[in-house]
Structures are given as C-alpha cells and as structure tokens.
C-alpha cells in the first residue's frame, strides 16, 4: 500500500458517498476532521466532491504541468495506487527523468514531482505510461475562474434564521485576532452570518438586496476586499486560515507548486511560487484589493 492508504482505497472504489469517505478517513486512523481531508484532496486535484450531497469521485490520473517555465516539472493528480506508482517510478528511471516524492500533510498523499530538461520529455513519458498532461494547468484554470459576484448570484436566496451569529468584520482581516462571531441583533446589517445545523455550520450573506445561503469561503470573500494578498517580492499569496478561498481558486493556487497552504508565523496561510499573472487572475476574480 502507498504512503496514502486513503487515496489508494478511494481510487479502488472510484466514487462513493460522504459517509463512505468519512468511514474511510476513520479507518486509516486520521484524526483530522474528514472535511479538512476532503478540502486538501480537492485542492490537490485528486478528488471532486458534489457540493450538495458531498458524494465524491476520484479524478482520472494525469500530470499537471507546473507554471514555472524555466524548469519543466509536473505533479501527479488523481487516481493512484502503490502498484501504479511503482510503474511510474520504474518508467521514469528508464526515461532518465527525475522523480521525487515530497511528504505533505497527514492523510494527504505525497507530492509526486517529475522533472526534465524539456517539456517534451515529460509529455512523451506521460504518453508512455498512458497518462495525459494538463498543460500549464494552473494558468488554464485561472483563465476560467468565475467572479465572486457570480458565485454569490448563483447561491440560493434564503432568509437568515433567527439566533444566527454574525462575523465581526475588521480592516485587518489577514491577522488572527479579529475573527469573531457574535449573536446577531434583530436589525440585520450587511455581513456574513452562520448557524450550527445538522450537517455542521451553515452560512449566509446579507447584502443590500438579498440574503443568500452560501459556502463560508464565498461569503467571506464577497464581503471584504482584503482577505487575500499577493507579495510580489516573494511570489507568495497570503490569507487567513478562516478565509480559505473557494475550491477552484485554492486549487488554481495549489497547482502552481503542488503544495498545500502552509501555516506561517502570525497565524496566516501562505502559498509560494505563485506567478504574478496567476495571482492577479485569482485576486481579480475574488475581487480582492482596493474597491
């Protein structure tokens, strides 16, 4: 079995329900909440989840080419088993490609990175082992990200329930101290609200015209233009742990390096090796920056 029995098992099952996923997480002895593991596997483009039912399906395996044009590299996404990885490693050594496994978070399969001198070498290798290459994957994803307003508009209109809590906004939203939820007053003001329901926390956004139920990530980004920042000098995208961007945006950023967000000093999450044009596309779709 691989270092990630969970993904190997899910690969053999191919698809299933949320309760099967949850049981599998428990069976492999992971202590993190299953929803965190699900977020990580989705960000790494291994699994897709249905938003309503949380039914899951493993993505077909492929090599996602990383966007750094100087050194051709690609990471393996989707379906994988130990026997399949053995096959990939032996083929890579025959093709004289460098292949590397980098450990990621617990429960998440290691990053399999293939490197070569020319892109053509990686593509020929992928073809040889029966896989496709997603060329410049992060950049292609960044080109079709919807705007945060369209995500809000497509969320169902639903009145915020009584006894909900409201997120207290702050100008310094990137730091840790100011994330606070307080019981909402009778007079509802614009903002993000939440209430604990049967499946866990559910979130609503109130703006000038409507009240909608939506994912937390959509609500917090639609509400504030300062949840995420890009540091041009280091190529890092920074955001608060409570403000993980919506699924597709996070996946776009993760596919720039194949690494998950890393917690750094100051209680922020960072993703490194983000080319400026991709960061710009993500920030622009999330409406981050001055309004």
């Amino acid at each position, binding site marked *: 079995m691989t270092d990630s029995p969970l993904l190997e*098992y899910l690969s*053999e099952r*191919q698809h299933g329900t949320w309760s099967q996923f949850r049981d599998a997480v428990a069976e492999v002895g992971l202590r993190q909440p299953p929803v965190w593991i699900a977020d990580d596997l989705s960000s790494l*483009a291994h699994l897709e989840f249905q938003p309503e039912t949380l039914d899951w399906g493993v993505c077909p395996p492929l090599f996602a080419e990383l966007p750094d044009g100087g050194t051709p590299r690609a990471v393996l996404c989707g379906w994988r088993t130990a026997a399949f990885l053995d096959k990939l490693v032996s083929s890579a050594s025959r093709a004289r490609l460098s292949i590397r496994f980098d450990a990621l978070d617990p429960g998440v399969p290691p990053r399999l990175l293939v490197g070569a001198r020319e892109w053509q070498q990686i593509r020929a290798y992928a073809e040889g082992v029966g896989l496709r290459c997603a060329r410049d994957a992060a950049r292609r994803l960044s080109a*079709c990200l*919807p705007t945060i307003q369209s995500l809000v508009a497509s969320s169902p209109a639903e009145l915020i329930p009584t006894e909900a809590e409201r997120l207290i906004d702050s100008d310094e939203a990137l730091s840790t101290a100011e994330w606070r939820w307080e019981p909402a007053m009778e007079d509802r003001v614009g903002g993000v609200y939440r209430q604990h329901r*049967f499946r866990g926390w559910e979130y609503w956004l109130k703006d000038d015209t409507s009240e909608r139920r939506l994912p937390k990530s959509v609500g917090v980004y639609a509400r504030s233009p300062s949840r995420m920042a890009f540091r041009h000098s280091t*190529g890092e995208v920074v955001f608060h742990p409570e403000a993980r961007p919506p699924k597709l945006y996070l996946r776009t950023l993760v596919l720039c390096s194949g690494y998950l967000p890393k917690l750094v000093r100051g209680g922020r999450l960072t993703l490194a090796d983000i080319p400026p044009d991709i960061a710009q596309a993500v920030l622009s779709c999330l409406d981050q920056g001055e309004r």
Partner: protein
Amino acid sequence: MAGDSVELQPGQLKWVGVVGLPGPYQRWNKAIGESFLSPQNRDRPLYLDIDADRLRAVAARAEMNVETAEADFVTAVREVLRVGYPDMYAAPLRWVHRDARDLRLPPFLALLGLTVLAASKMAADQQMAANNYYGRLAQLLSTDYDVASDFPRVVRAWEALNIWLDETHKGLLGKSTARAPGHFNRIGYPISQCLMREQDRRQLPAFYKWARLQPGDEPTVCELETLLQRWVRSGNSHLTMYARHKLEETGPLFAEVVSNELRAWSGEIESEEGSTARAAAVWLGLRQITPSSVQLFFVPQRPNGFPDMFQALDRDLGAIDGWYEPFPASLGELKRSHTWATGDGALTLRFEPKPVYALKMEESLGLWREVRQLAIGDQAVVLAEEGWEIWVRRTLDSVATPGWDILDVDGLPDGYVAFSDVSISSAGEPTWSTLDCLCPAQRVGLSLGGGLTLQPGVWLTGAEPTVHVRTIGGEEQVELFVDDLCVAELPPEGSSFPLSSLGLPAGQHTVRVGDRSRQFLSVQGRDGPPRSAELGTIATALQRRDRAYEPAKNAPQLGSRPSVPGVVYIRGAEVIGRSEDLPPAPLVLNPCARHFYLLGRNPGEGLSVPGHFHFKWPLGPKDQCYPIVARPTFPVRWLVRKNHGAHGWNIVPCEPFDGPSKDAPGDVSAEQIEAWTNVLLRSFRNLRSLKPRSRALLEAYRGVASALRERS
C-alpha cells in the same frame, strides 16, 4: 415483449403487454408486479409470498373478483402452460434471460407466483407428506404428469428474477431473496418465499433484540437457527404457528431467510401489536452546549426504505445517512413514550422511555446518542434515573475502567443523574435487564469489521479488517488462528485483533477461533487506472458568457464526451469542453523582453504586450525574473519582440506556419488593421537569419499588409 423500448430508469415499474400470452394471465402478472414491487422496498428483502390470502389482496387491489381469486389465478396460469408436455413452462419463459436484463416487468412473475402458492400449501395431510412439493404443484395444475422434469426451467426463471431485482433494478424495488441452499435444491426457491408471513417478519426486530444482535452482525445460519429455536421456546416470541411449523420443518432455510432480513436490517424496531405500520426507533441524544450545560434531543433512526423527508403531523425531518435530523426534547418528555407517524400511518417513529440510557458519541450528528448496548472499548455517557444510580455504579465498577465520574451540568432532566468519562473495558452479566445497555454481550461470536472494504468480503491489502471475538463467559484464553497459524491469544472474555498488523499477503485468508471461522479476501490496488466510465464523472460545470465564466445551473453530468455547447467542466486539474468554449491558452513569453507584439493570420488580429526592463543584462545567478504571460484571443502566428539591449525588433513565426487571410474579419476596426500592417511592415533585425521558408511566409503576410495599406 411487444412494443418499442421505453426510456425507463432503474426503480421505475412498467408493464408492456406480451404477444402470445392470454389476457387473464397478463392481468395477474401485472397485478402481482404492482402489488409486490415498489420503491418503498428499496434495499429491503423482497418476498413473493403468495398464498390464498395474498391473492385475495392482489385481486382487490387490481379490482378483480376477490371471492374466486385463487381459482381464477390458478386457471389463468394453467392456461399458458402446456400441461402434459415436456416443455410445459415454455410460454412465459421464452425470453427469460433477455427479460432479466429488461427494465420492464418480466412476464414470468405469475408463473413463479404459482410455484410459491404450491409451496404455501405444504403441510402434512392424509394424502401427502409435508415435504412433498411437486405433489402440491401437480395438484394445483390438476395433472398427473411429472411436473418436476421440466422444473429446472423454472429455477432459471427464479435466477432471472434475482438478476432483474438486484442488477437490472439495482435493488430499488427490493432485493432478491429466492435461494435454494443445501438439500432443498430446486424447490428451495419457491419455498424460501413463503416461510414467513408479513406479521412474522415484523417480529424479527424483537428477535434481534432478544438475541442482542446489532445491525451489521453476521452470525452463521447454524447459529441463527439455534437462537431462533431458543427464542421460540423461551415464550418471548410472537411468531405465528405457521412460522413455528416452518422453522421446525425447514430449519436452515428458515434461518437463511432470517439471515437475509438481518443483513437488510438497519435498526427498525418491532411494530406494535396488530399494527401494520413500519416503525423506527427514536433514540435519546445529548449535546454539550457550554462546558456547564447540555441539551437533550430526540434522534430518529432512518431504516432502509424510509423516505428522505419524514413528514409527520407536527414536523418535517430531513435525512442524512441512516438518521433523521435530531430535534430538541423537553426535559419532561423522557418519562413517557412518543410516536410520530406519517399522514397515511404507514411509517412511524417511536421513542420508548428507559430508566438507564447508554450514550456514545455519534460524530456525524455531533452529539452523544443512545445505543442499545455498549461494546468493549466504547467511551460513553450514562444517563440514569436516581433510583438506579447505585446499580449503575456497581455495574460500571465491573465493566468500566476506573475514572468515570458524575457529570454536574445544567440541562439534565429532574430525577436523573449522568455519568461521564465511562470507558467500557470488559464484558459483564447485568444484575437487571435494565442495565443490559451497559454490559457488552457475552454471546459467542466471531465477526470481521472495519478495515478498508472494497465489497462484501473483500478488503484492500494492508487495511484488512479487525477480528472481534466474543465468548460465553469462558475462563481460558482463546487462540486466534489465521490461515492455520496461531497469531494471538485473546483474553477469556473475548477481544479484538487488527489483522492489518499481520502484514498478510494478498489472497484468500481464513480466520478461526475454536470451531468458528470466517473467510475473507485481500486484494492489492490495480497497477493502472480502470477504463471505467464511472471514473471522474463529478466535475464543476461553468457556463461561458462571452469571455467570462459563471456557475452553470442544471448542466448535465460530465460524460465521456462533453457535448453541451457553452459549458465547460473543471475536473481536478483539467478544463474540459468544446474547443470554442475553452479559454484561450495563455502564452508564456520566455525569455522576457522589453516589448512584444503577437499577430494572428487575419488582418487586425494583434496584441501588444508590454515587457519589462532589467538594469543588468544578462541576469545574475540570483536575480529573479517572472515570465511574461499573454492571453491572446486568437491563434498566434507571429511573435515580434524587442529584446533587452537590442535596438531593433525580431520576428519569429509560430506553428502551424499557415498563410495569411486576405480579408479582415467583420468585427475588427480600421485601427486594428492598421496596427497589424504596421508591425508586419517594420524592418526586422533577424530577417536575414530567418529560414527561407519563414522568410517566404513573411513576404506573403507583408504582401497582404501592403495591399491593405494601399486600399486604405
């Protein structure tokens, strides 16, 4: 079957007339189908238990003559059979294999019903022995002919019905139950359908409770038979005399039926005396609201076949997995039983008050939920009436590790005391049956649970199941064998052992304790992805609006060939869709330069891309330069660049090196055409170093540019 194929989905029922079968037979076939098959039976064992009473009910439902139902039915079936000929069952079974794969109602249901009717008449009388099945069948068909010789054909029809239920309809109308184990051979199929009547099946949850069986338990048929006989003798059973006789006559087959029911049981409880409703248990829940307060909930179970939304008179309950949404219980409500029923009374939820509740954490619900019985290793909270406190303390002293404590919080009902940090460590024999919930069972048992199971009985290598061994209060250690090797000595009271710790190779394995054994298969992951259409069908659908994308509503599921115009799918790292709907591929302009122009083959297709300037060129080893990325909206044919340190411009052609279009598209402006021509007609520093073919191509583009300039 006659008629064109109809677009049906598994779980939908449709009858289409069959050419060559008489009308009365077809009416009975349809009536039986509609009476027995229903989405309400989803994932539940389905029995075609036809006897005289059921035939009257079927006739009443189909508005046929109730008084003569049995005689009419037998006559109708007899009419289609060629009684007295070697292929007497041929007419309704002509296309039996094809019918099994067709979603429409198979035409042989009524014939199979007749074979069950014969089985229902198997009781000893003066003329025939109780086990003379073929005699009863011949009697029904009023013939002396040997009805057994062609019976294998009927057996194939039973197998076809099983396929039709389990595979063609995926269990959505009920799961197959017709089997012929052991010495029952062929006639076991019809007999297995009528061993129990509906009112007997409704008693089975009471048997499970008596035997301390839990959903998911898999006792052997032999063990079940013994337990059933003990239950019947115990005086606790309300089985009918009919079922008691069947248990006596057909022991293993009867136990197999109960085993099927146990596999499908997901916690349904026994219905009240005389009730025809299906009932599910409502358990007590407890959630910690603050460190010093708790709230009580009712937690309704949702057995197989119960709807996604339970609509009772005073509340609607949404479902998740095997539960309905918990709702708060007021403190006074614990003293009496409660029932919530659907409007038609067919389904009920029932809460029964108890003096002692054992509660385990249910992660999916986020609360502590009452369980029927704790097991070794469970962490629990116990809620007990004050009168039972002393007995609970004594019981916990014997079955739990020291460290449990009284929970002092608000929100508990008056007259109750709660115990927290209860960790069950051993089996025990309760002093009172009220305390059964605290004492892990001591019944003999060997079961496999947990692990990463791929299908029933098959586990992924390296993640094999855990063996759970329960013993009858023995005093000697128990040896656990895997493939005839002793791998562990377990304590006398039983224990669990993870098979994954053994590093077993892939293949068939046998686990044995004493005379009990279980087999399982461990398999390794495949060495390549399956060519399955089900791999990767979940994706995020986006609708293209000009050059932007937004979430798509009601987009079809991603198939193997995306064909919906205007929709693209994101699946993992891929963007999938029609080429005209995909975003233009971003172009990485590497190495960097001070300025770029990108030109297409149509006049007017051009994009100016500013580059950047480096004070030091070439770059030092530690200097960083981000690539410049352009997102042209047209296929690029020429890349024009002003390099660092160079005074002029360079031009290079891009694949596929095709010639220019002479006319500009309608949507480009005169300024765009002028910019396109101006760039092409520049002088380029690398003109002489271009390959002759590229130079000729450039001349062709320049020819078009010159012509356009003259025209303007």
